């Protein structure tokens, strides 16, 4: 029961912040993808860099639960291509769809309904598609720590690369 309240509280806070920064605005999102507005991509990348530092801090005092998803070269890549087409088309991703629908954007309500249909179809096809697309090229739950051999080093690399990307987006995107 506590977990449900924690989930609800976390969701409310998350939905509030993504609305306030403009991530639920499909217009702002389209402009981000067109390299006309740098705010949302920089917001996302900086949030990841800071979260990685925060999670490293948590883990160093033995708090928290992690579960990195496996990488399937074919399935993760193909899924990302399908996802990218939908994201570019609507300006919504699954999380912002919930928040934007709550905000009262009708196009997000239709994205939510489409999402339910897409999830239902995948659930129906799971037993067929996973053995064909996911399993053969599944290389396991690999992380940057496996590449660098040291977690602190891996976190530092991630923070530096995401920091550079954040800075680069500010330079390359021609916006505000």
């Amino acid at each position: 029961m506590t977990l449900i309240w924690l989930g609800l509280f976390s969701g409310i806070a998350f939905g509030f912040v993504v609305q306030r920064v403009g991530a639920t605005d499909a217009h702002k999102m389209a402009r981000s993808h067109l390299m006309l507005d740098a705010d949302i991509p920089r917001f996302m990348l900086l949030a990841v860099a800071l979260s990685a530092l925060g999670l490293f801090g948590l883990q160093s005092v033995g708090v928290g639960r992690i579960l990195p998803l496996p990488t399937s070269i074919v399935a993760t890549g193909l899924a990302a291509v399908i996802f990218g087409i939908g994201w570019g088309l609507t300006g919504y991703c699954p999380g912002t769809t919930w928040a934007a629908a709550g905000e009262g954007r009708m196009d997000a309500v239709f994205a939510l309904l489409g999402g339910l249909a897409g999830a239902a179809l995948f659930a129906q096809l799971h037993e067929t598609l996973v053995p064909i697309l996911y399993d053969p090229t599944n290389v396991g739950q690999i992380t940057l720590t496996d590449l660098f051999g040291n977690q602190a080093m891996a976190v530092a690399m991630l923070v530096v690369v995401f920091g550079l990307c954040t800075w680069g987006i500010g330079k390359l995107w021609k916006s505000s």
Partner: protein
Amino acid sequence: MEPTNKERLPYWHWIPAAFALSGIIVFIFATYGPPASSSGFVSTLKGFLEWAAPDYVAAKAHYKAIPGPGSWLFAFALGMAIGGFIAGRTSKNIPVRDMPPIWKQRFGDSRAKRYGATFLGGFLILFGSRLAGGCTLGLFISGSTQLAISGLYFGVVIFAVAMLTARLLFGKVTEQEEIQ
């Protein structure tokens, strides 16, 4: 930050917003585990199907893997909608639109066309998310925070493909800078 764009500041600045979001993400890792939002769609379906077709749900691997509505994942998705609602009601400056101006500029006023497109887009993002095992939050943000290669790989490809898709769809109207 040219001063000419001052009127476009109904939004929070991205730097403090990123600190706020990462605070929430770290809180979630501490109190639950990796946050995810595409799973909330599966939880919703599972709740409905457990009532409508219990035998079907019990037999399908995807529904076995994701908990139903009585879970953190569903509460989080519901919370996102409530958070969006509260944020929308309490902001006077952020416009709530049914159709993005850039879409109108390119594809006209038809609501049916926009809603059809977002239905299709929603379908694609969820089909993709469920195949990969997560979405922008559940795979890219959560995964990268945990240093997972899957999250970084997914993130690079979704940004590249979304940017290409947006360019193909809206490329013609991007020169018209009056659309803000």
